[in-house]
Each structure stands twice: as C-alpha cells, then as structure tokens.
C-alpha cells in the first residue's frame, strides 16, 4: 500500500516534527484493503475466466466439414463434399443457457468468497486488537509480580523473613515471563494473519485504531434467518448449478431422441470427353451437383444412461440446496444467539465484574493503608483486576467476531468456510459450488 511506501518519508519528517497523528488502521480500512489486495480472492476472480470461456465456447456454431476426393474411376476427376452437423446446431441454444448458469454459479461463489474474506479480516482484526490488549495486560501482570518479588527479596535481604516468600515470588514472576512470550506469539500470529489477508508483503506497521466501546445492545439485524437464507450466495450458486444440470438433462434427452443428422452437398467434376447430352461443354470438364442427409437412427442408444446421470445430478443438487438452506438457517440462528450471549457476557464483565474487581482493589488499598494487610494481597487484588480485564478484552473480541459472523451470514456469506488458500484457485465447470457447498 502507498501508506507503507511513504512511511520512511514520514519517519524522516518525524525527526523534524512530532509523529503524524492518525497513523492508525481501522477495521473497515482493513476490509477495503483485503477486498482489493487479497491474492486468493484475486486468483479466484481470475479463475472465473474458465467458466466464462466455457460459456463462450458453448455459443459457438459447429464448423462445417469439407471433403475433397479424387475418385479412382475414370471420367471423374474431383469430388467436393461439404457437410454440416445439424443436430449440434439445434442443441446450441440449450448448451449456451446451461453454460450461462454455470457462469452465474461461479460468480455467486466469488460474491460469497468476498463476504467470507471480509468476515475473516474482521475476525483477524479483532483478534489482533485483543492480542494487543492481552500483551499489554500480561506486561501489567508481570509488573505486579515483579513488585511482589522485589518486596519479598527486600524483606529477605533485611532479614525479616525466611527465604520461602522470596522463592515463591520469584517462581511466580518467572512463570509470568512465559505468559508474556505466549502473548507475544499470539500477537505475531494475529498480525501475520491480518497481513496475509490484506495481501501485504511485510507485516502491518500501523497502530490499530482505538477500539470502540461495546454497543449498548447487540447488533442483531431484523429477520436475520430469512434474510440469510434468501440472500445466501452458496444457496444461489447451488441453485444455478441445479438449473444448469436440469437444462443439461433436458438437452441430453433431446439429443438422445434426435437422430444424429448431418446435411451435405456434393459436387463432382467429370474429366475428358464431353457428354452427348447435359451441360454445355466447359471445355473438357463439367461440375455436377448433388446433396443428401446422413441420419444415425436412435434405435438403441438414445443416451438413456447420460440422461439418467444428469437427472441424478439434479436430484442430488436439489437435496444439497435443501440441506444448504437448513444449514444456513441453523448457522444464522446460532450466530444470533452467539452474538446476544457474547454481548451479554461482555456487558456483564464491563458493567459488573470489572467494577467489582476494581472495588476490591480500592478496598484492599484502603486496608493496606490501614496496615491491616501487606503488599502481597494488594498485588493479588491488582492481578484479579488484570484477570477481569483480560476476560473483558476476550469477551469484547468474541462479541465483535460473533456480530461480524452474523452480518456476513445476513449478507449471503458462509463465514468460517471462507477462502480456502489451497483449493480456491481451481474452479471447474460443474463444480461451481465446490468451495462453498460442501458439508
């Protein structure tokens, strides 16, 4: 992105002036960037050319067949024969229609993939937000554990305690270093995922924009289930595939009943002496014209097997659409419930649990001031606040991801089955619902 190219310049400017404000990335910008730059989605869009090519191919006229023969008989020196496959011509319209359906199915698959990519970006963004907060909070916890350790070591050095409290505090502090490493790894993974999704060559460098507050009520669209089913691109794609299969079944049936018919014209030229009657002399040779029809009589092979295959494909696709609709409805209900419960959980943490933990810390500080307790319970109370903050951060992330999943479903996507980085690039004719329709 341009922003990255201009960053060195900004850094240079930063030496002269305070850092530029607004060097932040918000989730919507990340989505826009991914829709434009995601390599997998781009590959998939390019692969649409395969279906387009097939569609175009289906509309082309069959080529005429020209035979030129020099017979061995005396008196006839050249025979021209021009044939044309009439059956193919008759079936052309049907084939074009079926190929158009395949193309529509492939396009629906790409629309679905774009929505699913958007969800993935949102998921990755909120996961990174949480990972940022988690890393900061883990460092706060490490700080608190370091304070307990320093106090225990100071007490030991002064000769006021045995080595036991200091050893326990050292063990606790050192263990938290592992949590810090874990948080760093999690953050790196989240960052790289967002980087991959947004199609960058190097990791994101912007700070994430300040996370907004939890909305007062969960963002659940009205009639989400019916909208998700009606607008599902996966269902639409399977439906286009079904239509294509139905058209092809009809076409095959017709093809089986139609005698395989070719029409042809024949022209031959006689060599040597002029005939006693007939055409005026052309100076030694004359063209004669004839024509005919070649018909393969559909007595035994009326493509019954192919027809049965096409019909079975249609029946199977119909069942698949039914299953897909039910699955989308179920996933949407699940997402609605998940959004509502994640919201309730995040709100309870924000409005009840965290204030309660902070109140314990405040009261503990008062008791510490009153010399009723020592530093260790005070540090423990701070750690409890940090634990609640970690839970709140995760709950906020879970809510945002749940709401994004629901929004994606309502927009017609099937999040969680988003762009598959290995299988996405291949897109075959009758498999338009391939990446999205499986179960």
């Amino acid at each position, binding site marked *: 992105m341009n922003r990255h190219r201009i960053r060195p310049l900004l850094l240079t400017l930063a030496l002269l002036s305070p850092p530029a404000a607004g060097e932040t990335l918000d989730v919507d910008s990340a989505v826009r960037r991914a829709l434009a730059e995601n390599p997998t989605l781009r590959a998939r869009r390019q692969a649409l050319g395969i279906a387009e090519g097939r569609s175009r191919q289906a509309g082309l006229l069959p080529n005429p067949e020209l035979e030129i023969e020099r017979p061995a008989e005396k008196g006839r020196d050249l025979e021209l024969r021009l044939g044309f496959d009439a059956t193919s011509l008759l079936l052309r319209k049907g084939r074009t229609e079926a190929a158009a359906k395949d193309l529509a199915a492939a396009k629906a698959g790409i629309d679905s993939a774009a929505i699913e990519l958007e969800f993935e970006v949102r998921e990755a963004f909120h996961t990174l937000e949480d990972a940022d907060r988690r890393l900061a909070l883990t460092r706060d916890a490490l700080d608190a554990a370091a304070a307990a350790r320093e106090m225990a070591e100071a*007490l030991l050095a002064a000769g*006021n305690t045995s080595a036991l409290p200091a050893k326990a505090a050292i063990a606790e502090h050192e263990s938290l270093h592992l949590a810090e490493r874990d948080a760093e790894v999690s953050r790196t993974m989240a960052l790289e995922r967002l980087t991959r999704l947004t199609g960058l060559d190097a990791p994101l460098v912007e700070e994430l924009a300040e996370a907004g507050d939890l909305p007062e009520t969960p963002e659940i669209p009205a009639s989400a289930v019916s909208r998700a089913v009606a607008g599902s691109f996966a269902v639409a794609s399977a439906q286009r595939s079904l239509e294509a299969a139905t058209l092809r079944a009809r076409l095959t049936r017709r093809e089986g009943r139609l005698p395989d018919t070719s029409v042809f014209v024949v022209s031959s030229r006689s060599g040597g002496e002029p005939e006693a009657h007939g055409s005026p002399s052309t100076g030694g040779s004359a063209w004669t014209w004839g024509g005919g029809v070649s018909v393969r009589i559909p007595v035994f092979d009326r493509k019954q097997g192919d027809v049965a295959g096409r019909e079975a494909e249609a029946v199977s696709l119909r069942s698949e659409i039914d299953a897909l609709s039910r699955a989308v409805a179920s996933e949407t209900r699940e997402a609605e419930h998940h959004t509502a419960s994640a919201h309730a959980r995040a709100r309870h943490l924000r409005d009840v649990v965290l204030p309660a933990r902070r109140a314990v810390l405040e009261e503990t500080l008062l008791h510490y*001031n009153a010399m009723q307790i*020592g530093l260790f319970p005070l*540090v423990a109370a701070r750690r409890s606040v940090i634990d609640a903050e970690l839970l709140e951060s995760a709950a906020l992330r879970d809510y945002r991801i749940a709401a994004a999943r629901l929004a994606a479903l309502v927009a017609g996507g099937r999040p969680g089955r988003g762009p598959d980085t290995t299988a996405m690039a291949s897109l075959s004719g009758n498999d338009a619902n391939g990446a999205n329709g499986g179960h």
Partner: protein
Amino acid sequence: MDRRSFLNLGGLATGAALLGGRALAASPSRKAPVVAPGGVAVVTPNGSSLPTRLVRGVRVGHLVAESVEHEFAPGLSAEAWGYNGGTPGPTIELVEGERVRIYVTNRLPEPTSVHWHGLVVPNGMDGVSGLTQKAIPVGETYLYEFTPRRAGTYMYHPHYDEMTQIALGMVGFLIVHPRRPEGQPVDRDFALMTHEWSLPVGARRPDPLAMSDFNLLTFNSRAFPGTEPLVVGVGERVRIRLGNLGPMDHHPIHLHGLSFQVTATDGGTVPESARYPETTALVPVGATRVLEFVADEPGDWPMHCHMTHHAMTQMGHGTPNLIGADTSAVDARMRRVVPGYMTMGTTGMGGMMEMPVPANSLPMRATPGPFGPIEMGGMFTILKVRENPLEDPDGWYRHPAGTVASLADPARMKADGIQEPEL
C-alpha cells in the same frame, strides 16, 4: 450536651437530668444525687451516672439493657450493647447501708441478668441466671433489691451469656459511698473502665467470639483520641477508680508525672500499712483498683495501658515486618502497578499521617498534638494537671521557657564533651 461543661459542673445534678426523663418518669419522689459526705461526685469520663430517686427512704434506679449505637472515637462507631443508651452503663452510686431497688428492663434480643460484681448481697440478688434467679426474658423488667453493707468500688455486668454480653460492652461501675467520711478527702474522683474489643477495620459490630485478636482498647469504651482528658488542679488530691471487665486481658495502667498508692480494691480498703508507691497498677480482669495521689507537677501527663499494643488503635497483624527493608524499587513500581499506592512503615510506624483508610475505622491515626502527631491510640488518655483547671481544659499545657526538650546546641555539646558517633 457538651461533655466539658458536664465535667466542670462536677456531674452533680447534670447527670440526673441527662437520663432522668427516660428512666424515672412519673415518680412523685425527689431526685437524690449521691455524693460522698464531704466529698465530690464521681465523674465517669465519656460516661454518666445513673439518676436515682429516694422513694420512702429507698433509693430507686432503673437500668435498661439494650443495643446502643456507640462511638469509640470520631470516625469509628459500632453497634454495641450497653445500658441506658451507652457503654459502659451509667455509674451507679449508692450509699453504704441505704436500701436500693434497681429495676432492670431487658430490651436485648436475648435474656440477661445483672450481677453486682464484688458486692455482697443476698444470694437471690446475685444475678447469676440459672443459679440464683431466672434469666430476665426479652422485654421483661426484673427487680433487684438489697442494702449495700460495705463502701467501695464495684462493678456490674450480665451473668447470662457473659461472653457475648460483656464483650459487646455491657459493663458498668457500682460505687458505694461510705456513710461517714473515710480516709483523706479527695478533690477529684474519676472512674475509668478498661475494655478490649475485636472490631475488624471497616466492620460495624464487635466480635464477641474473639479470644485473642483484640484490636480496639478503651477507657470507658472510648479509644484515644476519643478519650476525655482528666483535668485536675495542681496540689489537688485525686482518686482514680479503675475497673476491668474486659473479656480476656489484664491491663497495667501507667501514669506519668506522679506516683500513686492503691488505696482500695473491690475487696475493700487496703490498710495504710500495706500501701506502697508505684506508677503502674495492674488491673486484672474482674477487679477494681483505686489509685490516689496528689498531682504536684503541672503538665499534660499520659495515662495508658503499658502493653504497647493496647495503646494503639485497630492495628492489623497481617502485615510483614518492613523495618530495615529497602523498598525503594518496589515503591516506584507499585505506584505504577496500583495508582494511589503510598509507602509506609520502613523506618517504624511513627510519622504515618492521614492516608485514605476504610470507612468506619481508626487505624494508625496520629492525633495532632502541640509538638506534632501523637502516635498513640486505644487505652490512652491525658491527665491535665493545671494551676487553674477551669481556665483552658481543652488546650495543651503551656510549658515555661526552656523546659521542653529540643535540638542540642553544638557549642553546649562540645563544652560538655559530647560527640555524635560517626555514621
């Protein structure tokens, strides 16, 4: 009511007026404050005396056992149990040989009884529920009637569920004045009851189950700086009656600036031949000690239990020993870890001034004094010996020039051959 003016009036009719309306309503007989012949009324600092009346030659009083909202010191209150609205209960003053009828109404949530501690009464009036009487049921009024036969300093307390009722504050003095003057007359006569309580910081009800973790030590159920000073004149003869009805602890009460003699216990008068001078009197649980002295040296003199933990207030025992620990690093870090964090206690407990503390608590609070914070609390009060005790009873003693310890003059040190040790 301003306690100071009460004190200055000597508590004569004022105490009766305080509670008379409630305890002795429609009686036709005369109010009869009790004063030792030729003596002064007993003053119960922070407390009161029970108003009594003479009805056809019998002294009549009324005790109401009840729950009381009690303030130990400004900032620390609790729901205690007591008599007639307070803890300790009002000091009952009787006269040797004068018949007395004391009505006891039980407004507690459980039965009670009253035992006249140290006093010899007919066995059925001894107040031991189950053994010498039925317990007074909730809401009932019982009558105790007897004639005190011997002058002295006694006490009263319940003898039903003693552990709970005494721990929650149901104690009081019962003083029998002699019919005829005995011993040397005194100019001041004070009564102070020691007590120990378990009241967790921030809590509102003392814990009667405590056996050793007492964190609140009191004179007349008040903790310094809530204790009212004893103001006396230079050269006055002073009597201080100490009683101990605390749950578990004996208290060595120490007086600065004078020496005294123990002239009586609740067992009777100590013969002159058995008295000896001392500055600390151990007051065991369930005993009284009467101290007498002449205060010759003017000043503000502490009077306190000499158990150091008893002259502190609401100390916790869950803090590690920080003396000598270098906590500079941890302090800097803690200010970041816990906003609002303050450092304490690495050079001793002194010098700790106001920090935000839990609501309804009195921990480690230093009281402003004339020379700085007074790092005392709990069972601590001040005996103010003044040329004119009426002049400024609330103020601090004004020391004559050159009589207060202060920074040494180096020239004087050198002249005296004093060298500070090298650091």
